[in-house]
């Protein structure tokens, strides 16, 4: 078992009582997330889907390296790593609809 620090993004800190970091003991990234889920109810479902893989709008970085497409959650831990949960932040204006001049948005 290795010790890893999990960085919690702001939107998920409501699950950790405001903590921005959680330290767990685990041999792989998957185990580290499982330990996190055992300690804080509800947070794991926000990070991984029913198949246990990272959700579409979540990225996982291990010491600054994006795990998507690599060994993924089965990446082994040596100890001392930082696992960051990074929310995918996305959006954009409506494809159709009224443009600014027609709406008369105030200047």
């Amino acid at each position: 078992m290795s010790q890893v620090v999990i960085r919690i993004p702001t939107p998920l800190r409501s699950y950790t009582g405001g903590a921005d970091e959680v330290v767990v003991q685990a041999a792989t990234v998957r185990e580290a997330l499982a330990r996190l889920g055992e300690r804080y109810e509800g947070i794991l479902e926000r990070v991984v889907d029913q198949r246990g893989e990272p959700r579409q709008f979540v990225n996982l970085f291990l010491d600054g390296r994006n795990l998507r497409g690599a060994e993924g959650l089965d990446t082994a831990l040596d100890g001392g790593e930082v696992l960051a949960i990074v929310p995918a932040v996305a959006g954009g204006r409506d494809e159709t609809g009224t443009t600014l001049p027609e709406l008369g948005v105030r200047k």
Partner: protein
Amino acid sequence: MTRVLCLPDEQRRRLAGWAKAAYPHEACGVLLGASQGDETRVAEARSARNIVTERARDRYEIDPEDYLAAESEAASRGVEVVGIWHTHPDHPARPSSTDREKAWGGWSYLILAVTREGVTDLRSWRLDGERDFQEEVLK
């Protein structure tokens, strides 16, 4: 209870510059600061890369590496990521259905309406418990 987002003039000017420079494409980034009660104070706005290239006029997704760098800097300065900003080129500063679908709770979402001439409006929004956006008071 109406929430308040305090955005200093200096940060508004920075945002306006990025918004105009990116036009007609969307620009995006994060807001660093602190929250207390119903008030969030922005200490610094940061720009981020939009990794959506094929639809940059109406979509954005913040480069996760830029987000990670911003969060690390926030932690080192004793602040946190308190919100997200992005532009709506030639559209109102109101959340779209795409914004709502992809939004996270607990953050302010600052939207800047921008035209060729520059920013025409900016408004801040936050998801409520029903995942509907409620407008915040911008000071």
